[in-house]
């Protein structure tokens, strides 16, 4: 189980939180890290709130999730 700190949060670097613009690629890198170090049968994404929104946006660039579960992501900010 991998629990990443989003950029600009916790112990991760990065000056600004970009609400998914850069975090989607960050999550893609984390999934790649998993496959490089201990290739699993499946990778599942699980996120709540901000983490849920990041998981959803990362689906555009990360196709290796077997499944993702998200809880109360923030709504889209585009109309």
């Amino acid at each position, binding site marked *: 189980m991998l629990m990443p700190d989003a950029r600009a949060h916790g112990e991760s670097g990065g000056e600004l939180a970009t609400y998914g613009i850069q975090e989607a690629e960050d999550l893609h890198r984390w999934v790649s890290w998993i496959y490089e170090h201990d290739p699993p049968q499946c990778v599942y994404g699980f996120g709540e709130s901000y983490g849920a929104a990041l998981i959803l946006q990362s689906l555009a660039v990360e196709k290796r999730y077997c*499944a993702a579960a998200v809880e109360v992501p923030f709504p889209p900010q585009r109309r």
Partner: protein
Amino acid sequence: MGYKREYVSVNRLATAESVMRQLAAWFDDYNDVRPRQALKWKVSAGVQKPNINRLTVRLDAGNSTSAVKSAHGNFIEPFKADANPAEAVAGRMRSLSGTGSRGRRRDRPLSLKVYRRPLRDQAVMATAVEAQFHARLENISVQAADGATLRAGTFIPIRSTGALCCCCTALQTIARA
């Protein structure tokens, strides 16, 4: 919420840089133009008490200098207009870090520089997880595309029991559905 509804939701947010460039106008409008019902339809500027979180970020292209002006009217660290806008805004946000309390953070309409809550009790959590789930907590890091160091904690099974955590079991069920 007004800020999110009236500025963020109705403008194009195609790239991070375009958002950064729009922030100046949004802050200016919110502080100096937009009437506020709570203030009997007066403009915020000149009515509210000085508040460090009400900022004016100026990124005027073509001018030799730009500056961030606090609600006190003081300019903070003028910077070159030809500086990278993203870096400029980041610098301004950085200059404010550490000054906010929880109450102040609620006043911020949009926060790109979020309050960084210190992680606590990691050792206690690691011990508890090891005892209950027979897994060892390790801290790891990767480099992001922009060079930022991203960190994570990962639980490594000390010995395989053939059982996964409840979340993983649920996710496997979803995947099979």
